[in-house]
C-alpha cells in the first residue's frame, strides 16, 4: 500500500488537534512569578490549567494575580461569585491593577500536599481590535473546608494582542513546589 505511506508522510509532524500545549511550568522551588512571554498569535483563544499553593504559612487562601503584557496600570476589572459550602459571596472591582482570582490559592498553613486547581480562558487574545475578556473556574477542597468560584476579568489598556501573561500571589508570597501552570492554545472559532 505505498499510496498510504505517501499520504502519511505528508502529514508527518503536523498536529490535527485544535487544542495544543504551548508551554508548562512546574515549580521546583519557591517562585514569586511565573511568566509566559512571546506567546504566538497563531491561536484563537488561550487556556491555562493550573494547580497551585501559596507559601503563606497560615490558613486561608490567597488571590492568584494575573497581569498581561507587563501592564500594571489601572486597566483591569473583575467580577466573581463564590461559595464555601456554608455561605456565598460575590463582588466586583473596576480600574484595578491586575485581575485577581479571589481566594484562589490554598495557603501553606493548610493541610500539606493539598492544592487549588483552576482553568482560565483568555478569549480572542490575539485580536488587535478588542479589549480582552477572561473567565475562570477555580477552587479547592480541604476535606471539610473548601471554596469554589467563578470569576471574570477584563483587560482594557489597549486592544493590542496579549503576548505575555504573568502570575503572582497577592500576598507577595511564592508559589510552592509542585505548583503547575500549563498554557494551551485553542484553534478554530
Amino acid at each position: 500500500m505505498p499510496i498510504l505511506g505517501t499520504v502519511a508522510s505528508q502529514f508527518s509532524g503536523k498536529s490535527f488537534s485544535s487544542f495544543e500545549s504551548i508551554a508548562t511550568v512546574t515549580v521546583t522551588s519557591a517562585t514569586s512569578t511565573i511568566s509566559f512571554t512571546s506567546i504566538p498569535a497563531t491561536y484563537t483563544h488561550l487556556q491555562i490549567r493550573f494547580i497551585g499553593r501559596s507559601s503563606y504559612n497560615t490558613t486561608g487562601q490567597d488571590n492568584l494575580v494575573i497581569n498581561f503584557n507587563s501592564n500594571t496600570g489601572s486597566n483591569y476589572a473583575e467580577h466573581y461569585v463564590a461559595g464555601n459550602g456554608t455561605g456565598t459571596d460575590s463582588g466586583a472591582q473596576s480600574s484595578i491593577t491586575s485581575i485577581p482570582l479571589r481566594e484562589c490559592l490554598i495557603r501553606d498553613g493548610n493541610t500539606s500536599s493539598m492544592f487549588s486547581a483552576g482553568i482560565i480562558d483568555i478569549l480572542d487574545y490575539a485580536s488587535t481590535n478588542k479589549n480582552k475578556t477572561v473567565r475562570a473556574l477555580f477552587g479547592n477542597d480541604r476535606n471539610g473546608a473548601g471554596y469554589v468560584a467563578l470569576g471574570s476579568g477584563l483587560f482594557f489598556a489597549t486592544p493590542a494582542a496579549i503576548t505575555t501573561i504573568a502570575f503572582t500571589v497577592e500576598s507577595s508570597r511564592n508559589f510552592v513546589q509542585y505548583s503547575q501552570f500549563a498554557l494551551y492554545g485553542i484553534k478554530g472559532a
Partner: protein
Amino acid sequence: MSEAPTKVVVDCSTGETQIIPLTAEEITEREAMAVAYAAEKAAEAEAKAAADALKASARAKLIAGTPLTEAEAAVLVI
C-alpha cells in the same frame, strides 16, 4: 524551599525556560509588601469583626425593644 525565591520566565516562541533568582532588592521589596499585606488583612478582619458585633448588638436591642445607637441603626438600615 528555604532557598532564595526565583521567577520563572518561559519564552513561548523558543520554548526556553529561565529560572531567575530574585535580587536582594526584589526580596526586600517583597518582604515589605508581604508585611503590608498582612497588616492590611488584619485591619480588614478587625473592621469586619467590629461590624459583626455592631449588627449583633443592634439585633439584640431590636428584639428587646430597647433604643439603638445611631451606629447600630446605620448598620441595619441601608
